[in-house]
């Protein structure tokens, strides 16, 4: 975990006890990042703002669940925000026809050379290497799901495969990624 996250850890502990100031500090530190992640899923800034609003309500309510021994504050909050954005997407129409279904080349490039000051360049490089190690379609599935919030059903349409197959492929890709990242490479 990057060193500058230790203040987020203590702030989350304070929020769990109802500390509004700590909550404000967390908001100021992390809102632009949560905006970025949700905007990519929702495609517009105003929709992202609604999802981010919902995300901080959940962060306040679930701060007590944050476990600093195993979790990273920014990664924990990003998941909450992405899930809030995905909830919005799932309640709307399917998007396969409207979206290209291609992964923005910028994402893989950005992963290889992260510009974000808060990013961990080593972790980015390893994830980039391991993503490049899995077959192109499977990599695209994982990235459309993570970055753009695609569901199994949407991926099934895009790749013209049954939903159950998509589930299997996603899970195999994830296990391959995990093995690659942990260096066990079986």
């Amino acid at each position, binding site marked *: 975990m990057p060193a500058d996250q230790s203040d987020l850890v203590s702030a989350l502990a304070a929020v769990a*006890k*109802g500390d*509004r*100031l700590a909550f*404000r500090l967390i*908001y*100021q530190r992390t*809102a*632009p*990042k949560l*905006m*970025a*992640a949700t*905007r*990519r899923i929702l495609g517009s*800034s105003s929709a*992202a*703002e609604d999802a*981010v*609003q919902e995300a*901080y*309500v959940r962060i*306040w309510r679930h701060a*007590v*669940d944050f*476990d600093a021994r*195993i*979790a*990273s504050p*920014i*990664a*924990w909050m990003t*998941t909450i925000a*992405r899930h809030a954005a995905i909830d919005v997407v799932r309640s709307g129409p399917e998007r396969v026809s409207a979206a290209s279904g291609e992964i923005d080349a*910028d*994402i893989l490039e*950005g*992963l290889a050379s992260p510009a*974000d000051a808060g*990013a*961990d360049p080593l*972790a*980015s490089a390893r*994830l980039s290497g391991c993503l490049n190690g899995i077959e192109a379609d499977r990599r695209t599935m*994982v990235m459309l*799901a*993570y*970055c753009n*919030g695609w*569901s*199994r059903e949407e*991926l099934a349409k895009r790749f013209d495969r049954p939903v159950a197959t*998509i*589930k299997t492929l*996603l*899970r195999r890709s*994830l*296990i391959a990624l*995990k093995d690659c*990242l942990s260096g066990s490479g079986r």
Partner: protein
Amino acid sequence: MAADADDIDALAGEYVLGTIDEAERRAAEARLQSDPSFRAAVAAWEIRLQPLSDTARSQPPSRDLFAEIMARLAQDIGRGDGSEVVALRRRVTRWRYVAAITTAAAAVLLVVSLNRTPAPEKYVATLTPQGGAPGFILTVDTVKHTLTVSRVAEAAPAGKSYELWAIEPGAQPKSLGVVEQARYQRPLDLPTNNLTLAISLEPEGGSPTSAPTGPVVFSGNLIKP
């Protein structure tokens, strides 16, 4: 063994990706509360995949989302002690699973929490430059008579100090001292009604007089949120 671990990891990974459907997600969220190995698997996936989120360009919200968030949370916060008991109950639930503590011990914890003294009255001021982002956040506890100062802005430039001033209506600014740390607490014995607080930029060590000599860089009013 390995297959089980892979199953947990695959589900945890799909949970983080967001590809599981609503019913599966609800089941996964329940499992997060009860199964420490699943919780660890989810946290590990969040960390593994975070670099992908770091590639998205940061963008500050354009509207005052924080005010909207606090308005939505007003009910939670208004409950005061109640929400803390809920939080504690959740923690107790987790302890039951994680450390298998006894129900009797949990009951003692709840009793202790219910006997807590009521929450003190709190006042808050956000000090901003004119129309800009907050630079300092101050909270006053009227029971303990303390003022907590949190600096959000950059530290004062080299050779300069931030000095905090309290201004009662119609009175001269009263120095509350030089800001030495990013966050600290000090006693406060001033009425909290209509109190204005301001930060001026002074020579290192603070104003040489009893009044601000440098520009006021942040200011705001104390309010009861």
